[in-house]
C-alpha cells in the first residue's frame, strides 16, 4: 500500500453530497495530477462529519485543517497553496477551528466537538466507508473475531446486559434482555433484523451511520446472528436513502469477499449472511411488526403484540430486531467491556445518544453526546445557540411521537426516563429547536398532520381520533376556536393513547398534549383573543401599512395579486382587509419596511 504524506478527507454524507462534494473530489484529483503530486496526496470520501450546516466540509491531514463551505472553484487554491506549498488557506477555514493566534485547533477542541462523545459515530468522517480495510484498521471486525473465537452466546448476552445498553430506536428497551429472549426462544430457524426505516421528519442519525460506517452495523448483526442462533439477517432501509443503500451494498459485498459474511466465517463453523430490503418510506413501517410484514412482502400494517418478534417474528420465526444506532454501539462494547459503557451516561441510561439538530439553531447537523447532557449544553455549546439572537422557546424531541420541552426544563439531564417524565420522549433522536417566531399551535398541527397522513388506518382510535384532533387544531388556528376545545383535545388525546393498536397511535397525541401542558396560554390566546403572538397562523393576522413610513411608491399595490391595496401619490397607501388574502407579497416588495403583520 502506498504511503501518502497528506490525506484530503471530503465529506460524502447526504448533506455535503447534495451541495456538490462529488464534484469537489473530482476536482481535487484533477488538480493533484496537474501539480504532479497525486502519488503524495490521497483523496478520501468519508461519511458525515456532523457539521452539515457549513458543508461541504473538507479536512486536510496531517494538519487537521477544517475547510468549510468549499466550492469547486476553491479547490485549485487549496491544492496550490496548502498541498503544494504547505500554506494553509486561512480564509477558507471553518471560523471556529482556529484560535486567536490563528493556529489550527485539533478537532476535539472545536466547540462543536468539545462536548461530544462519538461512539456510534466514531468512524463517521474518519474512514472511507467504501473501503473495508480502513474499517479494519480502526479495530473493525475485531469484536466479531473475539466473539467467534472466545465467547459463548451466553457470555455475549451477559456482556450486553451488564453494559446497560438500551435500544436507540425509540422505546429504550434493554438490548441484552431482547437478545436473551430471542436466544431462548424455541425455533428451528431464527432471524436477525435491522430497523433502518428512520421515518421521523428531520431525523438522519441512522442514515449517517449507514453512510459513514456501514461495516459497524454488519459486524454487529453478525455478532447477533451468532448469539441468538440465526444464519440470516435483513436490513430494512428506506429506498429514499440511495447513498446508504449503495454503501451498504458495497460493504456487504466486501464483507463476503473477506469471508466475514457467508459460510464458515473466519474459518469457524458459524455461517451468516445479510440481505437488504428496501422500504417505500411509510412511517408506520418503522414499527416492528409492520416492518416485518413489509419484509415478508405484505402490506406494512402492525399487529397486536404479544407475540413479540422475539418469539414470533419474520416468517413466524423468532427474530431479533434492533435499530441501526443500537447495533453500531455493540462492537465497541464487546471490545471495551461492559464497564466502559457503564461509565458513560446516567444511572438508568448508559452510553451516548446521537441527535439530529435542526430548526432554529446555528450548527444544524449531527451530534453525539453522553446521556445526561443537558438540553442547554446541546443547544448552546454544541449547537452554537439560536441564530439572530432570538429567544429560545421550546425544543421538540422524539419527532411525531415526542413532545415540546420548554425553557424551564433546559437544564434537565437528558435520558430516556427524564424525557418521558417531562412529557416528551427520546424517540430516535430528532431534536428541533424553536424560538419566539414559532407558534406552538402550529407546531402541534404540523406533527399531527404528519401522523394523520401516516396512520395506516387499521385501528379506529388512530385513524379517526387523530383526524378529529387535527380538525380541532385547524379550527383554533383559523380563529374559530371555542371554549372547551382545549379540553376536548386533551380528552381525545388521552383516549387515543390508551386505545390505539400500535406505537404510532399510542404516541401521536404527544405533540399536542405537551404543547397544551406547557403553552396553554398560547392556545387560549388563539381561542379568546384571536391572536397568534408568533405571527404564524395566517388567518389571525392582518397586514398594515405604517403611515409614517410609507413613501407612496406604489410597489405594494403592483405586487398585490388581489388588488387589495389602493392609494395615491403623496398619500399613504392602505390595505383593504376584506379582500386581502394575506399572502405577504406586499411586505416582501416594500423597500421602506413600511408594511407589518400583527
Amino acid at each position, binding site marked *: 500500500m502506498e504511503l501518502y504524506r497528506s490525506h484530503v*478527507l471530503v465529506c460524502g454524507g447526504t448533506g455535503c453530497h447534495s451541495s456538490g462534494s462529488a464534484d469537489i473530489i473530482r476536482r481535487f484529483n484533477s488538480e493533484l495530477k496537474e501539480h504532479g503530486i497525486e502519488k503524495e496526496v490521497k483523496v478520501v470520501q468519508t461519511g458525515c462529519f456532523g457539521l452539515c450546516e457549513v458543508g461541504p466540509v473538507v479536512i486536510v491531514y496531517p494538519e487537521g485543517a477544517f475547510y468549510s463551505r468549499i466550492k469547486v472553484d476553491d479547490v485549485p487554491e487549496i491544492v496550490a497553496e496548502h498541498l503544494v506549498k504547505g500554506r494553509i488557506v486561512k480564509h477558507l477555514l471553518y471560523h471556529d477551528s482556529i484560535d486567536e493566534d490563528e493556529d489550527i485547533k485539533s478537532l476535539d477542541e472545536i466547540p462543536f466537538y468539545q462536548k461530544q462523545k462519538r461512539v456510534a459515530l466514531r468512524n463517521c468522517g474518519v474512514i472511507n466507508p467504501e473501503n473495508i480495510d480502513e474499517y479494519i484498521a480502526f479495530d473493525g471486525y*475485531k469484536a466479531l473475531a473475539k466473539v467467534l473465537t472466545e465467547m459463548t452466546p451466553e457470555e455475549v448476552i451477559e456482556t450486553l446486559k451488564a453494559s446497560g445498553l438500551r435500544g436507540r430506536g425509540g422505546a429504550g428497551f434493554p438490548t441484552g434482555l431482547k437478545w436473551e429472549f430471542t436466544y431462548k426462544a424455541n425455533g428451528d430457524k431464527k432471524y436477525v433484523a435491522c430497523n433502518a426505516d428512520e421515518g421521523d421528519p428531520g431525523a438522519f442519525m441512522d442514515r449517517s451511520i449507514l453512510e459513514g460506517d456501514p461495516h459497524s452495523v454488519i459486524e454487529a448483526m453478525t455478532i447477533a446472528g451468532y448469539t441468538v442462533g440465526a444464519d440470516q439477517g435483513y436490513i430494512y432501509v428506506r429506498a429514499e436513502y440511495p447513498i446508504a443503500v449503495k454503501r451498504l451494498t458495497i460493504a456487504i459485498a466486501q464483507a463476503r469477499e473477506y469471508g466475514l459474511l457467508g459460510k464458515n466465517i473466519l474459518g469457524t463453523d458459524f455461517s451468516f449472511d445479510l440481505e437488504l430490503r428496501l422500504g417505500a418510506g411509510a412511517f408506520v413501517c418503522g414499527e416492528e411488526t409492520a416492518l416485518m410484514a413489509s419484509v415478508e412482502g405484505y402490506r406494512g400494517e402492525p399487529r397486536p403484540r404479544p407475540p413479540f418478534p422475539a418469539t414470533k417474528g419474520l416468517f413466524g420465526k423468532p427474530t431479533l430486531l434492533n435499530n441501526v444506532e443500537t447495533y453500531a454501539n455493540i462492537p465497541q462494547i464487546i471490545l471495551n467491556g461492559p464497564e466502559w459503557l457503564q461509565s458513560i451516561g446516567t444511572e438508568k441510561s448508559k452510553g451516548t445518544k446521537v441527535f439530529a439538530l435542526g430548526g432554529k439553531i446555528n450548527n444544524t447537523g449531527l451530534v453525539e453526546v453522553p446521556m445526561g447532557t443537558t438540553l442547554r449544553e446541546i443547544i448552546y455549546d454544541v449547537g452554537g445557540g439560536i441564530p439572530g439572537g432570538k429567544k429560545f422557546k421550546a425544543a421538540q424531541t422524539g419527532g411525531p411521537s415526542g413532545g415540546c420541552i420548554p425553557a424551564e426544563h433546559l437544564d434537565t439531564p437528558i435520558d430516556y426516563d427524564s424525557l418521558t417524565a417531562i412529557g416528551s420522549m427520546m424517540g430516535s433522536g430528532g431534536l428541533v429547536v424553536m424560538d419566539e417566531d414559532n407558534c406552538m399551535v402550529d407546531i402541534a398541527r404540523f406533527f399531527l398532520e404528519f401522523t394523520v397522513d401516516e396512520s395506516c388506518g387499521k385501528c379506529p382510535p388512530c385513524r379517526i381520533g387523530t383526524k378529529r384532533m387535527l380538525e380541532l387544531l385547524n379550527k383554533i388556528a383559523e380563529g374559530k376556536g371555542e371554549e372547551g376545545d382545549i379540553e376536548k383535545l386533551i380528552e381525545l388525546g388521552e383516549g387515543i393513547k390508551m386505545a390505539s393498536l400500535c406505537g404510532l397511535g399510542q404516541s401521536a397525541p404527544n405533540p399536542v398534549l405537551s404543547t397544551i401542558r406547557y403553552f396553554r396560554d398560547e392556545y387560549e390566546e388563539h381561542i379568546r383573543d384571536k391572536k397568534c403572538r408568533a405571527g404564524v397562523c395566517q388567518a389571525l393576522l392582518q397586514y398594515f401599512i405604517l403611515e409614517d413610513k410609507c413613501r407612496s411608491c406604489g410597489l405594494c399595490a403592483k405586487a398585490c395579486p388581489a388588488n387589495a391595496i389602493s392609494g395615491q401619490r403623496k398619500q399613504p397607501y392602505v390595505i383593504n382587509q376584506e379582500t386581502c388574502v394575506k399572502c405577504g407579497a406586499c411586505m416582501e416588495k416594500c423597500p421602506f419596511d413600511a408594511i407589518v403583520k400583527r
Partner: protein
Amino acid sequence: MKTLKELEEIRQRTLEEVNLRKDRKGTRVVVGMATCGISAGARPVLLAFVEEVKKRNLQHVTVTQTGCIGVCRLEPIVEVYMPGQEKVTYVNMTPEKVQRVVAEHLVNGQIVKEFTIGAVEKKD
C-alpha cells in the same frame, strides 16, 4: 476467506496509512515548502522523511509541511516538535541528512547538533 492472522495484517498495514488522521499528538516533523523551500529541494527531503518514517514504522511521528519559515537562504528547513521539548530547526537539509535525523533524533532522541540552525549560523 481471511483468517484471523490476515485480518491482523490488514489492520497493521492500513493503520500505518490512516494514522495520519489521528490527532496531532506525538512528534511532528514540519518541512518548509514555500517556493523558496521547493526550489532549494524541499520535496525530496519531505518524501525522504515520509519514506524513513514508514520504513521504521514510527507510529507517533507525523510529517507535514508548512509555508516559508523565514530564513530562505538556509532552505530546505525542517522543524521537529517533540512533546515536552523545544522546537529544533534543521537547515540546508538533504535526503541523506534526513536518514541521520530520523535515526538519531526521532528514534533515539539525540538532536543532530551539526545540522541545526545554531550550528550552521556559527560556522558562517
